[in-house]
């Protein structure tokens, strides 16, 4: 079990600059959690506090039930992969991976290998013959339960490195130095170095940011496979929402040191808690427009760009369930939820820029009121004639599906259909708080 519980954690730098405000999160055992947000949102700071590379100004962080606030990074049972790989340039790949094992001199009980067991058995027989039963008993105990040793032997180090290198496909590079390797290979070595250690939590600080787009996609898939093999708790920091969406079991979306929303990728995409999350998650980003939500009996309408559009499907039902009256809103529509309209209905827009992405067009259009919109149209949905017409300056009509609309309060920017608030949404699970109260950790344990 390696739960990570982050409780009321704050990071205040000198000069009273608060980088992280009252961060509360319960990361479950073997969960892959992703901290995502723009630069300066506090995601890396939080990760570094978990790693022990930054002091915690307030609050507590527990790993596997132990408060780690005052523990050195090496005593937290963590492994970490850095953005710039942080490989030791003077060491070969093998020695880079061996570094954490060679430096670890902790006493531990290690099971004997088959060869060692066989040798020990012969020795036991010999000792028995000589009547040295005490020694023979001790040796038998070692055969059964393992042998006490400090650190790792060279053979154990070799075995671990070869295993990790095979998983990561870097066996042929073990004698090379990092400078003779490409970015992707270096990052694999960095992951390998983190893998060979026995760790409870695997931390990754923007590990793919230094790679080119193609390699990033490839490594992303490899991290998914790696996660299945290692099967431990992961905390992954990125500013790339695609990485967050594809890798995370849950995503923590942050802004200016505050958690904006915690949820599964689907929750964040389909039910963003606020305008920030709505616009951060998804590419191209969500279109927004100030307009009114109009209630007429049991039906709802919105009037963006001077056109009255019905809100149907689940969204209309959800508005009705909450008994929301007519009010001004910010309407959010994702670019992929806007269609070309061939009939009389639809909002007339003019194409300003047409980005051909291969499988789809990203059309930057303006309405008659001068509002800007991005529309995402799959290439295959267009006829050759329609494609030929997708040129700058062309007037087209678009329509919005009421099922995929998002409604935000213009002042608080909160989603009208998502009940969570920043203050109460991410407090620790009630059962954990209860459990902790029962255990009544001695104060000295926390302060140590």
């Amino acid at each position, binding site marked *: 079990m390696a739960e990570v519980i982050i409780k009321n954690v704050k990071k205040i730098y000198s000069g009273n600059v608060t980088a992280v405000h009252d961060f509360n999160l319960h990361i479950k055992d073997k969960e892959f959690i992703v901290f995502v947000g723009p630069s300066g949102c506090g995601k890396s700071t939080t990760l570094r506090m978990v790693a022990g590379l930054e002091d915690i100004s307030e609050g507590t962080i527990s790993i596997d039930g132990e408060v780690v606030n005052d523990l050195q990074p090496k005593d937290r049972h963590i492994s970490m992969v850095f953005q710039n790989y942080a490989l030791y340039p003077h060491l070969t790949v093998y020695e880079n991976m061996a570094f954490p094992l060679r430096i*670890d001199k902790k006493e531990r009980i290690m099971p004997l290998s088959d060869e060692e067991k066989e040798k020990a058995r012969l020795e036991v027989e010999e000792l028995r013959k000589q009547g040295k039963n005490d020694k023979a008993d001790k040796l038998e105990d070692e055969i059964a339960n393992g042998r006490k040793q400090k650190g790792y032997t060279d053979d154990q180090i070799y075995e671990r490195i070869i295993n990790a290198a095979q998983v990561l496909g870097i066996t042929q590079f073990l004698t090379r130095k990092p400078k003779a390797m490409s970015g992707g290979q270096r990052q694999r070595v960095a992951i390998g*170095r983190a893998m060979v250690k026995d760790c409870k939590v695997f931390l990754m600080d923007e590990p793919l940011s230094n790679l080119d787009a193609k390699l990033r996609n490839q490594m992303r898939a490899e991290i998914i496979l790696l996660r299945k093999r290692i099967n431990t708790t992961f905390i992954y920091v990125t500013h790339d929402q695609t990485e967050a969406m594809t890798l995370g079991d849950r995503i923590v979306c942050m802004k200016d040191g505050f958690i904006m929303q915690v949820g599964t990728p689907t929750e964040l995409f389909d039910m963003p808690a606020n305008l920030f999350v709505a616009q951060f998650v998804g590419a191209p980003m969500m279109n927004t427009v100030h307009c009114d939500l109009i209630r007429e009996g049991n039906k709802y309408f919105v009037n963006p760009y001077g056109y009255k559009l019905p809100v149907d499907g689940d969204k209309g039902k959800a508005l009705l369930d909450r008994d929301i009256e007519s009010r001004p809103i910010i309407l959010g529509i994702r670019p992929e939820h806007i269609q070309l309209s061939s009939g009389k209905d639809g909002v007339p827009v003019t194409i300003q820029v047409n980005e051909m992405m291969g499988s789809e067009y990203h059309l930057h259009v303006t309405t008659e009121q001068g509002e800007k919109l991005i529309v995402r149209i799959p290439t295959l949905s267009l006829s050759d004639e329609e494609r030929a017409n997708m040129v700058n300056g062309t007037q087209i009509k678009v329509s919005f599906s009421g099922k995929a609309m998002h409604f935000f309060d213009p002042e608080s920017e909160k989603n009208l259909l998502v009940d969570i608030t920043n203050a109460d949404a991410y407090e620790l699970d009630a059962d954990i708080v209860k459990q902790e109260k029962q255990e009544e950790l001695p104060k000295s344990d926390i302060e140590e």
Partner: protein
Amino acid sequence: MAEKKSMKLSTKRRIGNIASYITLGLISIIWIMPFIFLVLKSFDVENPGVTSNVIPKAFGFNNYIYLFSSECNFLQWYFNTFIIALVVCVVQTAMQFAMSFVLSRFRFALRKPMMNFMLVLGMFPGFLTMIVLYQILKGIGLTGDNAVPGLILVYVASSGMGYYVIKGFLDTMPKSLDEAALVDGATRAQIFLKVIVPLCKPILIYTILTSFMGPWGDFVFAYTVSLGSQSGMNVAAGLNSWLSAANIGQHFAHFCAGGVIVAIPVMVLFLFLQKYYVEGVTGGAVKG
């Protein structure tokens, strides 16, 4: 027209180059002449005093043989200098590295004021403190015959002040290396010895060379502290004693031979470590 212009340009460049080479050549000759004279005079077996001819009339190794004979104290001076330079080199390199590592990697109260203070302190010429240091050393009995430990103490005491170059080099090394090592389980001392120092090879060589060269070539301090004691002098102060009005007629050629012997270890060191030295001097500026 264009051809005429280009010809003009090439002619101009040629004239400029010729002028540059002549100037540089002249400067080089002025610079190298004393060395050539020194080396040639060291082989002069005819006249041991100052002569007006540059090329000796008779060549031989007598002057060198004299240096290693029991007739003079050259070997004692040489040994003194070597011991001083070696001890200072080791201690100064270790202290400068430790100091630079701390100033580059740790953040603590008064760090910046301390750095500024040392910067300002380093701007004062060392000679200003000479009289005071002499009095202190005299007070604790480290002058004259005991000048060697006294000089080591003086050179080593100011070691930490020369942290700038190494700190500059360390500052260019990503801190994530230290952090990775910390997460891997290394202590600060292990990080310093197993990660930082091996990566500092160029700057390490540079520091070793400069900290060896300082006491190896020092004259003013060594002369003052040794107070004319034959057993306490370093090689520069000792050789200088041969340049007094009474000795120069007998010992000038020996002085020149001594000069050549003094230059040999430094020359060999530089030739072997030249590559690293250049990397060290420029490394901090471009690495990263």
